[in-house]
């Protein structure tokens, strides 16, 4: 692995209000034999304060990748996405939208707001594991991240 420093694991910020989904991501990563540092924000406001290292997240480390749900309390994923992508400090962090919505409008508006990938949450556990494996594989081995993660 090619890494310019910091933790040995890719650092994911998972923005997800559903505890079941948070756990599922952890379990699926584990079952798939992958390792990652996962930080969790339970709503849009918390996600932005984490990224901007505002209290109580002043000690937060910058994630390599954001996994963002669209339907969130307080501030929804669409707003979070557009704030990240219009913030000069944050806009270089890749954002993967991870949602149940298969609506064409959501897909289109996410990419228009510069989402880096749009993924519809799979239904079965096997597909879920496969999806997370794919995300890991792509973002840490195939693509090269601004934080230094990435393959050849």
């Amino acid at each position, binding site marked *: 692995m090619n890494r310019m420093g910091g933790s040995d694991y890719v650092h994911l910020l998972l923005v997800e209000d*559903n505890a*079941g*989904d948070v756990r*599922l991501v952890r*379990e699926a990563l584990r*079952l798939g034999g992958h390792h990652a540092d996962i930080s969790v924000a339970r709503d849009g406001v918390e996600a932005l304060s984490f990224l901007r290292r505002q209290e109580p997240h002043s000690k937060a480390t910058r994630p390599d990748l954001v996994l963002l749900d669209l339907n969130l309390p307080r501030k929804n994923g669409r707003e979070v996405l557009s704030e990240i992508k219009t913030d000069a400090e944050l806009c270089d962090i890749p954002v993967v939208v991870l949602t*149940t*919505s*298969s*609506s064409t409008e959501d897909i289109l508006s996410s990419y228009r707001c510069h989402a880096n990938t749009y993924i519809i*949450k799979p*239904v*079965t*556990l*096997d597909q*879920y594991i496969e999806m997370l494996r794919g995300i890991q594989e792509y973002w840490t081995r195939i693509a090269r991240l601004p934080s230094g993660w990435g393959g050849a």
Partner: protein
Amino acid sequence: MSELGGDRSPAHRKPPTVISVVTDHLGRIRSSDGLFAHYYGVESRDVAGTLLEEYVCSEDRPYLRSLLTAPMDQRVDGVVRFCLLGQGFVPTRVVIEPGPARSTFAVAIIGRDLPCREHERGDPNGLLLAQAVLNQTRDLILVLDSEGQVLLRSPSVKEFIGRDPVGFGFCKVLPLEPDSDFEIKKTNNPLRASSPAPGNGSTPASGRYRFPARNNRRIQVVVDQVISPDDPRGKKNGSVVRLDEETERLEGESRMGGGREDLSASSREIQQFVYAASHDLQEPLRMVSSYLQLLERRYAGRLDKEGLEFIGFALDGAKRMQELIDALLVYSRVVSRARPSGPVDARMAVAEALEHLEQKLATTHAEITVGSMPIVWADRAQLVQVFEHLIDNALTYYSDAVPRVMIDAERLNGSTRFRVQDNGIGIDPQFHNRVFELFSRLNAREKYPGIGIGLAVVQRIIERHGGLCWVESSEGSGSTFFFTLPDHPMVEDA
């Protein structure tokens, strides 16, 4: 009788208009000149084959018939009231004599004071223009004069009422009863709000009615007051009346309306509800099935056989619910993702459907025969979907023999009828209507997979296109599915 229109000073005289028609001994029109179509408000090509008496006031019809059945070598004449486009009944002289061929009659309709032809009078009341506009719509629209007499109507009105109302009082040809079950819906058209409908006995008022002559069908009547076209000084009010059929069923409206979209407010709400519900249901369902699977993986060793079986049933239920939700989404998309229709080569649509079914065709070794396929007017992707579901069906419900599917089309008058025939297990006639219902299944899930969405989608698509679909079959002897697509004026006969 040689004079019409009473005494008039010579200064007002102008030469009479002579309209000539050839009929058979029953008064059926064989041919007519262009004037006839012009004055009596029909398309020239539609005149032949109609009865001359259809253009005459009903009270004068027996008299006209008596003139036509007079001894053949005799020239007869009389006066009957013809219904003149935009003018109501006008007494007009007819002269009937033996025609050019055996058992035909030459009828001369001699009109005095008929309005000038359009190039002479320039359509000052705009009636010809208005009729031309009305001819373009499938909506039920009538134009009434100040007395409530029907001056003009859109073509579908005749079909709806069962007779041509032109020249008759609206309230007489369309006896409506107020429907007290409904409140009168307020329209937000500011023009309408400023001119409340009269409803004085001769002209209707806006509101909801029942039409007793037609199974108490519910009709919403929307009345707009206009300056009466029959009053050149513009002092009297006429009205433009639109009839909207209330639909009992949310879907299937287009069955009668020829492809009209099912867009009433309530159906749009249901549409949104179905979409939202199927979408929101997915979220918790995903939790149920994912955690059941996690449970199965992690605790399989610690559960006994029965425990694993329970998880299996629960997972099966979750999977089935997922399929139902997906199906609901597919069903709702027939309307929400519909695209405008255009000319589609049905042969290409079948070819594309077969491509989608490639794998199934290979595993079943099915034999597909495609007959002649015309170009039709349809939403291309949806026509492909229809063929795909019908062929898929044939490949699913097959008996012991190799599945054989025959697809062809036949041009009918005004529509195309498609046929998808198989040699499969067939359908007991008592279930023929049920096969098109959403989620209805006739066979055990273990034996034939599927959740009962395909034919429901087919029916919804065909109804959206203004066509019909049905099945002819008996148990054990294959099924033949039919569907029709109405012609569009822009599709020429091939």
